[in-house]
């Protein structure tokens, strides 16, 4: 199975996504430069975290015009699994592949720390290996992760079960104190209507080895490996 890790100018978690998929999961992985016009036959696309175009103007705003994004959109439209992590999530939102927007963190400061998120839905390729209500300990590192969408969008997302992760306390309760950035309804990650495109602010790729303090990110990355294996077998 092959992961494509998209590299925008300024991406800085590209190597982390590559390391986690290639060296920890033992899968194939390839960097795809933002000017490339094909995805090298990848089965999964990762839009990594970082600061594409320095986060100038707005996070993800410039990256979404990169040539490679046309291919990513086609891949997603055809049902291919796409995950946007942190800045990658921001790019997916700007590109309209996911709904909503991310505002400055409630307290304005950039925040780097471990948080807990609850898995809300398990029928996406990135959560199928988890259990509903399972609590994952994952790092965040962002200044603009405060999820916002209009009331109708929120209602639709909730009705269609498109909220995939919510910030919560270690025992799984969503509280204001456990919401690090002020996100609406503690939303930490969402998926599209087709459920194959997922975006989240926490970094699963930073939590795949016990030396780094948590292995809960494996739930996310191993899910897609088993989802695709199952599909291949079927």
């Amino acid at each position, binding site marked *: 199975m092959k992961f494509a890790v998209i590299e925008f100018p300024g991406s*800085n978690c590209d190597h982390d996504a590559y390391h986690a998929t290639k060296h920890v999961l033992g899968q194939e992985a390839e960097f795809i430069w933002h000017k490339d016009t094909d995805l090298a036959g990848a089965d999964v696309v990762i839009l990594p975290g970082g600061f594409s175009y*320095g986060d100038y103007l707005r996070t993800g705003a410039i990256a979404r015009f990169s040539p490679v994004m046309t291919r990513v959109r086609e891949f997603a439209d055809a049902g291919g699994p796409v995950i946007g992590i942190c800045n990658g999530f921001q790019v997916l939102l700007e590109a309209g592949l996911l709904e909503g927007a991310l505002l400055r963190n409630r307290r304005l*400061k950039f925040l780097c720390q471990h948080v807990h998120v609850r898995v809300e839905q398990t029928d996406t390729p990135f959560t199928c290996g988890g259990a509903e209500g399972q609590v994952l300990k994952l790092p965040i*590192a962002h200044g603009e992760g405060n999820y916002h969408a209009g009331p109708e969008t929120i209602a639709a997302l909730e009705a269609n079960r498109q909220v995939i992760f919510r910030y919560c306390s270690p025992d799984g309760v969503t509280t204001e104190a456990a919401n690090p950035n002020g996100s609406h309804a503690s939303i930490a990650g969402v998926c599209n209507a087709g459920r194959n495109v997922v975006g989240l602010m926490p970094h699963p790729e930073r939590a795949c080895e016990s030396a*780094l303090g948590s292995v809960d990110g494996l739930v996310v990355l191993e899910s897609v490996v088993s989802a695709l294996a199952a599909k291949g077998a079927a």
Partner: protein
Amino acid sequence: MDQSTIDAHGLSADEYQRLLEILGREPTITELGIFSVMWSEHCSYKSSRLHLRRLPTEGPRVVQGPGENAGAVDIGDGLTAVFKIESHNHPSFIEPYQGAATGVGGIIRDIFTMGARPIALLNSLRFGALEDPATRHLVDGVVAGIAGYGNSIGIPTVGGEVAFEPSYAGNPLVNVFCLGVAEADKLAMGLASGAGNPVYYVGAKTGRDGIHGATMASAEFDENSADSRPAVQVGDPFMEKLLLEACLEVMKTDALVGIQDMGAAGLTCSTCEMGARGDVGIEIDVSLVPQRETGMTPYEIMLSESQERMLLVAKRGREAEVEQVFEKWDLHAVRIGEVTGDGRLRIRDHVEVVADIPNRQLADRAPLYDRPTTRPAYLEAAQQLDLAACKAPVDLPRTWLDLLGAPVIASKHWVYRQYDHMVRTNTVALPGLGAGVVRVKGTDRALAFSVDGNGRYCYLDPAEGGRLAVAEAARNVACAGAVPIGATNCLNFGNPERPEIMWQFAQAVDGIAEACRALEIPITGGNVSLYNETDGEAIYPTPVLGVVGVIDDASQVLTRLFPAEGLDIVLLGDPAGALGGSEYLKVAHGMARGRPAALDLDRERALQQVLVEAARGRLICSAHDCAEGGFAVTLAECCVEGGGVGARVELAEPAEADDRFALVCALFGEAPSRVVVSVASGQRDRLLAHARELSVPATVIGQTGGDRLAISVAGEVVADIGLDEAEQAWMGGLTRHFEHVAA
């Protein structure tokens, strides 16, 4: 050249005379500008060079000592750690966000210029008292600036230190350390060679930024400096990220001869130094230099300090390869000149020659001063500590909590949570847990680093302060389980033209040199920042040491936290502490007096050896150095943060038990070479035996467990606080000052 122009360039009569000798004629204005920045304190180290020679710079692991853009030490597996520390004090005072941000940008360039991929940043910060809103504004801006740059470029900031003392109110210190890893045989050098080889300029366009920035860093502030502010440099971390990736990629091609970043004194310094190191000349045409503003003169182009620019010398015939790599990153390498065989730095504006200087002489004949030194008069009185007029504390638990909440001691999470400290997925000890530790992918190893320096100790005894700074940084690294293998230093002092300041400087260098020699930690580079004064008030003399250590097995890394209940607590080192220069004296009595406790270098060395070997043998479960606040504070720091465990300890009766301050000394007195470790009972005797072998005192003082922290002396509980109280005081001590700071 008229005298006022010469004066405006800060050249003394002697220096100007030397310039005339070298040129054999009157200089052009561009030449005068070039000499003035190359011979400024900042670039030439004219006041400090003589002293820096006393620092030990050699050792079996040293791959690159001082002289290049950064030093390098061997870390095994054919890899080297490339690291350096730099100050950005003056710019950060003028514009805290941009000053700190561009400081980070500058030190990162020094590292990747050497061909190393930067993998960690640390910072050492000093500000005035936090009660002053102006200080809070500075702290907020500086921290945001460090975060803004480091986070964006994607290099984790894994540690540092912050202290607050009134002496830094008008002159904060912002020192930034960066470390990268390179293959030992692939280090790049900042040198030019081969007449006819093309010289390339790459990166941001040149504007009128920070012209005379290097001379600014070489003059003290006064009331007028607020008005004569030069254009502030604005950092562009996105550009630097592109440069970083493109330069590392270009270096893999072997089409490069040399490379150097344009830091202070920009194009002037980079052309001159690259030429001088390779003993060649360089000729460039400034009209080819990409410019952001119109109508720039050759003088301005040569002296601009615009950020995010690099100078490269490529091999003739390999131009296309170099240009292609930069194109890929949307950077356009521009050929602005070539290497020449005549040893001259020749600057043209189209066809007109605007400067023509013998390069070696510009670099090598920079002035060197043996400035007079005098022992400062304040020392006599300041070193006397008379507590007769002081009230001894009646409520020791209260004093304990007050110290835990003192901003110098309290948790710095308000600072480091703003820094991405996990990017690159190497950080195996998060900031706040002791030394920063990152693993080296592709090996089993990890590197640990700490930056330390106590300005108050140095103020009270500069030589001892220098020794203590080395020892503390190295001890912090050893507490993580790492063997200290190299150091860099940033020497922040006042005006060197004052003999008292120069004396502090010379003494501190002696102290650092002595300790580095004894602990076998070579200095591979560093930075000197002088003229840190405002209206004649100097900062505390503040040498900051950055020590790098290596751990062969990354899974053996230790932090400060007691990991479980039921462990034995052992104090390594002599239990006695002293109040001279202590944080207790400052917090409880508002005094900076006495002498810091003296360092025994043999003891220190043995202690660090015990720590490293105990970590390697997995004898101990945690280790934490007794620093500011003494034993009691250290013990609490082993317990607090997110579900820690309590502790109950028993100390021996102090020798001068009848002294009113005997208990205070035992609890809050400070002294080097003391470390609190936790150990599983099965390993305890091995640890004690091992310590005994190396003549390091080791005392079992208690056990971990429960939800209280209790210290008894001679069977009687003298201080007992709740874990939650301790945690609250410590977690809130710094943060509470920032509840109302706007963005």
